[in-house]
């Protein structure tokens, strides 16, 4: 008897492992999440939401007279054995409920706990014996009275958000697993629309109308050019690096600022936390280095000037020629400026728990290059060129894990600044069908 395989592994044309057991494991995992969300949500609703809702809707109003005052002490012992106590004001009130007089201790309005007993006593002194306060008693248990109503919105948010996320994620995953149960991969793929909606992690690209698996190009034809028809959007890898440096510097220095303010308040209060002060020094060094790297990246990205590319038509077709206008801003001398038409394959795969991408340029066609370009501030270098998509070229393709991308790449080597690479994606459609062939004779 063979044990079931819970995993799948791609081996050439076939995939090993049991699809049924895989679906069962997926369903069990999401079912557990759904159950956890329902239980957690039920506990929060019954323990927090329902009592609060009852206070605001079911409890009956009654005037309460203060007949006693006191402090409630709550002691918490930490791991080292020392005890920390908090003090909270309490009022003993007399009130009428169902024609009977009751007395009970209750928390006064806006009474917060204090670690300092004298502070809590000071707060307690603001209420006078014999004073009358509005109160509300529980009609099902008149011994319970509250002196304050309202909602704790943070608690409601917590009660809804966390269990809600578990229920949504677990429920959609369970529904997806049920829909997949016993169905072939072709059947699942044929119903991809609903499955994609149920899978929040699915990243299926948008496709061009009437061209399945060819990426949509609406976003690439919504910017008119100054001379040619369209201005191509830029996809600069340097911009993402710069954004990464900027985010890192911002987040790191925000944490540093919080720690520094805490240390400063301690120093002003006469306390010195040497461990915190010692930690602040390397943190500050990293923070300053992060700002420095960001500023350096910003200077490098802007110093060599902007690159713009315009094209006479879009999307492109195999065998067709297109005019391209290159406009390079900046100042100083460029040793080289080069434009190439490239075709790149990109594959995304899982390696262990990581998701990795690999790119390979499989076709590179030089378009034009320039040497010793002299740029004058306030003007831009402009050059016209022509690109031709080969007649037997593959069209652009994009699926969830694989893509085939056409692009114009501009590489520059300024004399005073580091070299740069700027990528302008293109969409190439398949050549128009020349007319479908009639069905031929049968073969095998």
């Amino acid at each position, binding site marked *: 008897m*063979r044990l079931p395989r819970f995993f799948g592994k*791609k081996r050439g*044309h*076939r*995939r090993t492992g*049991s*699809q*049924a057991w895989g679906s069962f494991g997926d369903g069990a995992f999401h079912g557990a999440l759904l159950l956890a969300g329902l239980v957690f949500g039920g506990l929060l609703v019954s323990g927090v939401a329902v009592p609060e809702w009852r206070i605001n809707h079911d409890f009956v109003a009654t005037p309460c007279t203060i007949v006693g005052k006191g402090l409630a002490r709550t002691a918490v012992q930490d791991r080292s054995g020392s005890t920390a106590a908090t003090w909270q004001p309490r009022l003993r009130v007399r009130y009428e409920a169902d024609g009977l007089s009751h007395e009970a201790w209750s928390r006064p309005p806006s009474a917060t706990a204090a670690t300092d007993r004298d502070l809590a006593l000071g707060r307690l002194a603001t209420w006078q014996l014999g004073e009358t306060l509005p109160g509300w008693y529980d009609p099902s248990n008149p011994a319970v009275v509250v002196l304050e109503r309202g909602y704790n919105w943070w608690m409601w948010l917590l009660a809804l958000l966390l269990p809600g996320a578990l229920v949504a994620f677990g429920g959609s995953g369970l529904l997806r697993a049920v829909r997949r149960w016993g169905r*072939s*991969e*072709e*059947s699942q*793929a*044929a119903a*991809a629309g609903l499955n994609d909606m149920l899978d929040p992690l699915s990243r299926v690209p948008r496709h061009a109308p*009437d*061209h*399945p*698996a*060819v990426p949509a190009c609406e976003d690439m034809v919504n910017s008119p050019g100054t001379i040619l028809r369209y201005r191509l959007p830029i996809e600069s890898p340097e911009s993402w690096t710069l954004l990464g440096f900027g985010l890192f510097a911002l987040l790191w220095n925000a944490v540093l600022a919080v720690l520094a303010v805490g240390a400063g308040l301690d120093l002003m209060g006469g306390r010195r936390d040497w461990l915190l002060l010692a930690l602040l020094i390397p943190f500050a060094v990293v923070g300053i280095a992060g700002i420095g790297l960001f500023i350096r990246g910003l200077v490098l990205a802007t110093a060599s000037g902007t690159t713009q590319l315009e094209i006479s038509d879009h999307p492109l077709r195999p065998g067709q020629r297109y005019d391209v206008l290159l406009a390079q801003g900046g100042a100083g001398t460029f040793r080289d400026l080069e434009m190439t038409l490239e*075709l790149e*394959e*990109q*594959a*995304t*795969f*899982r390696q262990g728990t990581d998701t990795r991408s*690999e790119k*390979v*340029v*499989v*076709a*590179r066609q030089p378009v034009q290059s320039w040497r010793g370009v002299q740029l004058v501030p306030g003007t831009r270098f402009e050059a016209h060129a022509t690109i031709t998509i080969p007649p*037997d*070229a*593959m*069209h652009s*393709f994009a*699926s*969830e*894990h*694989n*893509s*085939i991308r056409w692009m114009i790449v501009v590489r520059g080597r300024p004399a005073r600044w580091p070299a740069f690479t700027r990528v302008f994606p293109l969409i190439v*459609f*398949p050549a128009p*069908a*020349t007319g*479908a*062939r*009639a*069905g*031929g*004779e*049968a*073969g*095998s």
Partner: protein
Amino acid sequence: MSQPSDTGRASPRVTVQFDHPDRRYEPQDAITVRYRIEGLDGERTQAVEHSIAWYTEGKGEEDLGVHFFERVTDPARLPPTSNGGEFAARLPSSPLSYEGVIVKLRWCVRVRIFFQASRDFVSEHVFDVGRIPPTRVPPARSP
């Protein structure tokens, strides 16, 4: 190419005939496929699925796109009453078959037989859409 999803029992054979003997089609061509199932050894079937699909091969995770799908459950069209069938569709304008370096795109016809013993058997037959030549890696750029 036929392969069982689960081994150990009868291994059927599915022979397929394309209406283009060279199995080469152009985008938006009509495609007609006839198939015959043999070697069931009396095992009872509950459904047969026909599909025309593309899938990716290579370094990345496999992606699958189904262009035509049909599930046959009518006993009159299933073995042992009927040991074969035919289905037809018009191909879409994309994607085209592609033999890249790390991404390959193949079109195929699949006949999947579901047995009453909760197992299935799939037979896959590749064909070409379009005439894109295989890709080779260009020489690395000089610095």
